């Protein structure tokens, strides 16, 4: 797409949508809604990338986030003391620290955005996906491969911790089924 008023309008609209969805993550009282508002926010970022001609990158971001947010919702529900996650619960904690962290990171990022001189290297017009592949498996190969190996190690560790036969032994060791406290004669 050639840059024009429409592109600028679309980028602004998707960006605003992503920010509003990100804000709604903390305004809702349902863990599922929080997870999927975050997904909507990422879809907005993906759409911005698509408008910026990085079609493959934007779509792959949306593709990955759908599965990831579902996994995140399931993990949140598993770890919270909230039966099946169906009870409403607040999504914000440690108000003072989080406000300070939020304002601080916004100021730093805004400062970087205003002050930094970004390089002007437009993507090749023919096929940005090919250029992306050459970058991933060429100049930046070491960075991405190390990150990939690190992520794989984290995944194996997470599976080892979550497995029924984890490093602390059988997950059900010592657990006793609750007894049914009913006497037969009670039911007339």
């Amino acid at each position, binding site marked *: 797409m050639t840059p024009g008023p429409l592109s600028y309008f679309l980028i602004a609209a998707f960006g605003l949508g992503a920010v509003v969805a990100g804000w709604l993550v903390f305004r809702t009282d349902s863990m*599922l809604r929080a997870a999927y508002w975050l997904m909507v926010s990422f879809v907005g970022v993906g759409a911005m990338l698509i408008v910026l001609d990085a*079609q493959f990158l934007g779509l792959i971001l949306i*593709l990955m986030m759908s599965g990831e*947010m579902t996994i995140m919702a*399931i993990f949140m529900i598993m770890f919270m003391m909230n039966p099946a996650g*169906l009870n409403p619960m607040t999504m914000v904690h440690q108000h003072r620290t989080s406000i300070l962290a939020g304002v601080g990171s916004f100021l730093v990022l805004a400062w970087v955005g205003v002050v930094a001189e970004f390089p002007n290297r437009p993507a090749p017009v023919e096929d940005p996906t090919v250029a992306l592949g050459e970058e991933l498996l060429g100049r930046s190969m070491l960075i991405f491969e190390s990150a990939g190996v690190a992520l794989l190690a984290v995944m194996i560790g997470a599976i080892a911790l979550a497995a029924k036969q984890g490093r602390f032994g059988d997950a059900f060791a010592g657990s006793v089924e609750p007894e049914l406290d009913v006497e037969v004669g009670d039911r007339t």
Partner: protein
Amino acid sequence: MTSLGILLQVAVSLVAGAYLFVVADRLMGGSTQGVRSALVYPVKRLSFLMVQPVTTTERPDFEAWILAPSLLLGLAAVGAVPIPVGGPSAGGDIPAGLVLFGAAMLIVLVAVFIFGWAPNSVFPMIGGYRSAAMVLSVGIPFSLVVLTTAIPAESLSVGVIVEAQSSLWYVLEQPLGLPIYLITAAAIAFWGPFDLPEGADIVGGVAAEASGPRLAMWRFGRAALLVTMSLMGQAVFLGGYLGPVLPGWLWTLVKTVILLILLALTGRTVARMRVQRFVWFGWVVLLPLALVDVFLSGWIAL
């Protein structure tokens, strides 16, 4: 092709395909009332659901409950956009069309999970969790076999992939592709032997509490999803519109109907698979086979 043309093409193919799918399923289900009854069945069922009173549950997530069926149908439509139907230019010419399809199909999981979650009820929620376990187990093999068709074609555009099959269809060049694709597609569309998210053992699963227009939309969305899966299957594995004598759109129609009937048939003929066993099957059998498919295709392409 203009945007309006693509919109019309997607709408017509999804409505007609969904109609055909419901009729085929009705006939295979051993309906004793003959073919004519089966032909009007989708219309009768739709009219019934449109006037059926809508029941609700205690404190449902109302917006999510209404959104989920529309999301399912919308994703089926988005997935159908990049598929060329009648010839090289008949379809959205999207450079990364295959990725668009993959992204739309994997977000189906979100629609099913939300639809199970929203009623605030036990059985739909169990159905949603079942769907998550099944789709997360086959999501990677599904994406791998679809993206492998892009290796010999050297493009992510569906039109280019169809053109690259002029000498040999990928169903023969990548023999592992189509079987894995059909199994995983049925699982993502919670259909056939993998319909346990809507299983009878949990009184209808994700759709247990749904009724009225909402249920009609949900059923239409699932049928449309299977149509989109068949459309993409014929485009990337069966050579799409390529074929002798007949015009291109007719070849697309014939191949899509064959895949759609094949998928519909599994609903009545293949035994269901338990979720735990299916998860094992996805990670231990389908994923390595999909990787073999990638390596073999890459080797042939090199």
